[in-house]
């Protein structure tokens, strides 16, 4: 799958060096813990209209999780269209949505190639499902719109090595950011939406290895917790009180249905917080 026309870096053979700290204390200190309360999301910055050449655009930044080290999430979204469909496409009474999510090659610890890999395509499908429910598709017959998201920085902790963190949990955070930023960019492009959709993540975490108690936090940062047992990412329409996309992953017993329900509820709560930022940002755009 690698692109032969470009000179690619070595394939997965190198690991970024991890430097030894001066003393024992310094090593201990790098073990991060969550400093926010369990029901608070990280601060985020959202701005629309950052790309003048696109029909609509938005930029989202989520603050760095840990002091000094990790990188926050930085997303840029451009919306192109509505524009006419290529000739080969059959007649469609609706707008055709196509979503592209791409990590920049330097966004994560492990370098990403230029071609979209399966996780990026997967994110794109999730995003499409989330947005399809929010837009009013029949307002734009025979046209297509491209939503392109570049993940400039991938919200990963630089200090933990590749083998430690599980990237699959990072995907959830990335998706929720993608949903929020795409929603802002769609509103900026003037494409009819039933509501402002925003993403939120909640996770069931265990904080210490020997701790049998697990609790639910919203907007989890994987490196701050010992183990994530389950997580869900929700795309939520606040005024309609509806969910357009739900992605749950983890391992829960069938008897733990209450846990699942409260996980979803917390996810919605996280999405409501993100929506507040979104509404404020859009208000600034008009005013």
């Amino acid at each position: 799958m690698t692109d032969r026309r470009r000179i690619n870096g070595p394939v997965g053979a190198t690991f970024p060096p991890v430097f030894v700290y001066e003393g024992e204390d310094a090593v201990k200190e790098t073990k991060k813990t969550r400093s926010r309360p369990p029901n608070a999301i990280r601060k985020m910055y959202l701005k629309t209209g950052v790309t003048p050449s696109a029909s609509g655009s938005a930029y989202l930044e989520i603050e760095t999780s840990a002091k000094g080290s990790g990188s926050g999430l930085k997303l840029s979204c451009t919306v192109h269209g509505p524009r006419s469909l290529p000739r080969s496409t059959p007649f469609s009474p609706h707008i055709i949505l196509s979503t592209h999510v791409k990590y920049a090659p330097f966004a994560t610890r492990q370098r990403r190639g230029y071609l979209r890999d399966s996780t990026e395509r997967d994110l794109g499908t999730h995003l499409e499902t989330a947005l399809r429910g929010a837009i009013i598709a029949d307002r734009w017959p025979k046209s297509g719109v491209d939503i392109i998201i570049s993940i400039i920085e991938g919200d990963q902790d630089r200090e933990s090595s590749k083998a430690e963190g599980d990237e699959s949990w990072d995907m959830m955070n990335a998706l929720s950011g993608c949903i929020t930023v795409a929603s802002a960019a769609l509103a900026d492009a003037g494409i009819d939406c039933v509501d402002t959709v925003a993403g939120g993540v909640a996770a069931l975490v265990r904080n210490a290895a020997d701790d049998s108690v697990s609790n639910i936090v919203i907007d989890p940062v994987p490196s701050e917790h010992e183990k994530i047992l389950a997580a869900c990412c929700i795309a939520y329409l606040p005024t309609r009180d509806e969910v357009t996309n739900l992605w749950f992953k983890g391992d829960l017993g069938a008897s733990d249905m209450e846990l699942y329900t409260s996980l979803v509820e917390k996810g919605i709560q996280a999405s409501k917080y993100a929506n507040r930022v979104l509404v404020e940002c859009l208000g600034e755009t008009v005013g």
Partner: protein
Amino acid sequence: MSSQHVLLSPAELSYLHASLSLQPLPLRPDGRSPTQFRPLVAETGILPGTNGSARICFADGTEAIVGVKAEVERTVQPFTQDTQTTQDEGETPAEDERRKEEVGGSDWVEMTVEIPGYRDDDPTTVFLGQMLQEALLADGEFTKRLRINGRFHWKIYLDILLISPPLSYPLPLLSLTTHLALLSARLPRLKSEGDEDPLFDDDWAASTYVYPRDNNKKDGKDGNNKVVARPPVTLLVMAVGNNIIFDPAREELAVADVALAVSVGEETTTTTTQTGGDDDVDMEEGSTPGKRRLRLLSVRTIDPPSRLTPPGVPNATNTAYTAPTGTAEAKTQDGARTLETERVEGVWKAPRGGAKVMVMAALVAKVLEKGGVADEVLDGLEAVDLG
């Protein structure tokens, strides 16, 4: 498959929607009950060149085969801070060892889905593959089985082929076929010990199952050995009105309000049978339906194709039908694409927005219900002869 066009008229869609949302029971086009699956034919061990294989053919003519291939691969030894410090200070090497044994990389499994008429990097194909893989890796039990020793592991390639055109959303079919293929998958017996280069027994008869079976227990009439653990299954479930419908056919999915793919696993039964002491536990774990302890592994929303269906035009706004005054009004409305109307009974309108939280929760609960559909499906799969 959401981009695929459903060739149904607004009137047909409206009729389908109405009949599927009938209370107390929906009227499905093929006469099934809401929880009934389409009848299927299944067989395992069909491909001699694989470690495990299965084929399932649904009554509607969709057919899938899955082949499992295993290769020995060197485990990448990451240079981490942990190993560095333990080497320096000789601190708890046993602890370190235990940790290493526990984890298995998620890249030890590679799953590819091939659907005729779709590119292999088509979003739908990737989505299906990721969904099945996610469920398989969710509990971390599977990758543990693939460990050979500290330096080597098995790499499993799961190749899923849909050999018929996709007449309906192929998720349940692919999931069930994968389940059976994994159950029948066998790996050669390891002869070497410890961390030395692995050496395997040539005798295929001595090979071990990836999903181990309990030799002491015979399972029902087929004389199969009872499988101790099972791979997950992914079920497709949708809601129309107040009804929950399982295994929807393509035309049913075309009017779905919401569709979910729910992956369900079975809790690993503890192999305490050898001691003979826990007889009562043993009895409980027997294949009595409803005694199975299910686990929820993943839930994904499927974009229902209903959002891309053509809307019907109510008589009130149909300019071809009403008095000519209507046309004059429509002309003044430049800018509004289609005239906004309230939902009219009997006129199809593609759903907008998402689904209520309660509906989604009800779907998941229905799947996990004791003695419910997931149980039934797993029972059905148990009856398949695993050659």
